[in-house]
């Protein structure tokens, strides 16, 4: 099988999706991220691994947190980082995606971090680069359409492993708007690859993708049933801006049925952790008392996200 993310030695050359990525590779990324966590605790928050490399952040879609964490990760590896705000640059003058890439390659780019509204755009760039023989240039998918957000999936896996140590006995409940969520898709692929026995998708019929059971998850429409006995609860953001048509009666109605409150959290295991990929809508999918409560690991997720992105970048740059 030809996996465009791996070279013939099985090393990671692009990170496009967690789907089909072998468990050993995912495990290696998580292991590599561990020592990077402590880099942030030092006087000089930098290591010289990517010195002299140029990383282009290509964000065709808005994002503050993800772009910032990629920028911090690259800078802590001593790379030079160029942020391109594509919305206001060449593409609005009619340049195609691949022409933009070719121009940046001509500027000696070493790595592209790509967010795009269209599923498959990072894939297209990776294929284009290998067709052009540019094997030394790497692509990281920072979120494409509804398809994948692999570094978010990896930082979620890292967070779960940090608090729960292993996956083989866990029940993980993913709650809310799975339909629009590339985060959920990446996390589900990662969890099943690493052998998580029970992954649950909780949400109204209108916000769950059709045939989501084929990914190996159990579907619950009743939140109380779905949360019972959970070790990990992943709350998703209600992506109102992507909703066309009447998927929901109202945000208030959604919170009543699928918002995480202290009462509902009490149905999960006493040591359950609560995660959220951000940005949070307080009072829509999560109650403030839970978001700021002792089960919440939402801010550690952000910190771990930098270490995980450092691990991915340094593994790519050395393949």
């Amino acid at each position, binding site marked *: 099988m030809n996996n465009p993310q791996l070279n013939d030695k099985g090393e990671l050359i692009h990170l496009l999706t967690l789907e089909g990525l072998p468990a050993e590779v995912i495990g*290696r990324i998580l*292991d*590599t991220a561990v*020592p990077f*966590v*402590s880099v942030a605790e030092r006087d*000089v928050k930098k*290591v010289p691994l990517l010195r002299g490399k140029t990383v282009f952040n290509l964000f065709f879609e808005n994002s503050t947190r993800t772009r910032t964490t990629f920028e911090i990760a690259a800078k802590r590896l001593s790379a030079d980082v160029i942020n391109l705000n594509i919305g206001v640059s060449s593409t609005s003058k009619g340049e195609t995606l691949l022409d933009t890439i070719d121009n940046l390659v001509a500027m000696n780019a070493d790595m592209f971090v790509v967010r795009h509204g269209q599923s498959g755009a990072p894939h297209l760039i990776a294929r284009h680069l290998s067709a052009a023989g540019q094997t030394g240039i790497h692509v990281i998918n920072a979120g494409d359409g509804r398809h994948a957000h692999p570094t978010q999936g990896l930082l979620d896996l890292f967070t779960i492993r940090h608090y729960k140590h292993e996956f083989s006995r866990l029940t993980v409940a993913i709650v809310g708007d799975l339909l629009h969520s590339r985060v959920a898709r990446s996390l589900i692929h990662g969890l099943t690859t690493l052998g998580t026995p029970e992954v649950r998708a909780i949400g109204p019929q209108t916000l769950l993708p059709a045939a989501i059971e084929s990914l190996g998850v159990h579907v619950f429409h009743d939140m109380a049933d779905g949360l019972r006995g959970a070790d990990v609860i992943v709350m998703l953001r209600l992506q109102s801006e992507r909703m066309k048509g009447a998927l929901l009666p109202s945000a208030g109605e959604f919170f009543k049925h699928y918002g995480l409150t202290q009462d509902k959290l009490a149905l999960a295991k006493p040591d359950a952790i609560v995660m959220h990929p951000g940005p949070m809508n307080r009072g829509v999918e999560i109650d403030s008392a839970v978001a700021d409560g002792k089960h919440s690991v939402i801010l550690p997720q952000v910190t771990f996200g930098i270490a995980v992105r450092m691990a991915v970048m340094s*593994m790519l740059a*050395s393949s």
Partner: protein
Amino acid sequence: MNRRNALPDAETALAALAERMQGAIAIDAALVGIYSGGAWLAQRLAEMLPGNHPLGYIDVSFYRDDYSKKGLHANVATTQLPFEVGGSRIVLIDDVLYTGRSVRAAINELFDYGRPDSIELAVLIDRGGRELPFEPTYVGARVSVAKNLSIVLNRQLDGRLELTVEAAGGA
């Protein structure tokens, strides 16, 4: 490959190293071992030497000069320096001193934590062959082996240290 006889016994070399360091290193010197062999040696030396020496461990993977050629190896450990590096007196400890490139990487990393007052270098084995201008302050034993061989320090289940010779770059 019966070169084992050419090597000194690791425990004997360690005893010799400890004897040279005793009374010579600062009473409050921190012992910082380079993973993995140097870390084992630092633990042993902390038990053998009088005084209360802070222990630290350093993984130089993020600072190696052959990263772009060889990449990151699979098990990078976490550098732990649980003392104030700025103003400290440090004895850097490694198992085998050869080209000097690990020492260069380790010193670079230490300076990202602070400015030590001094750094000395203690090694179990000096095998010559330097490519950088480093000389150890304290040496357990000096040996010479062929260029295509590596000297490897192993730790047995009972904690005893043992030296072996392996073909270099086999991995």
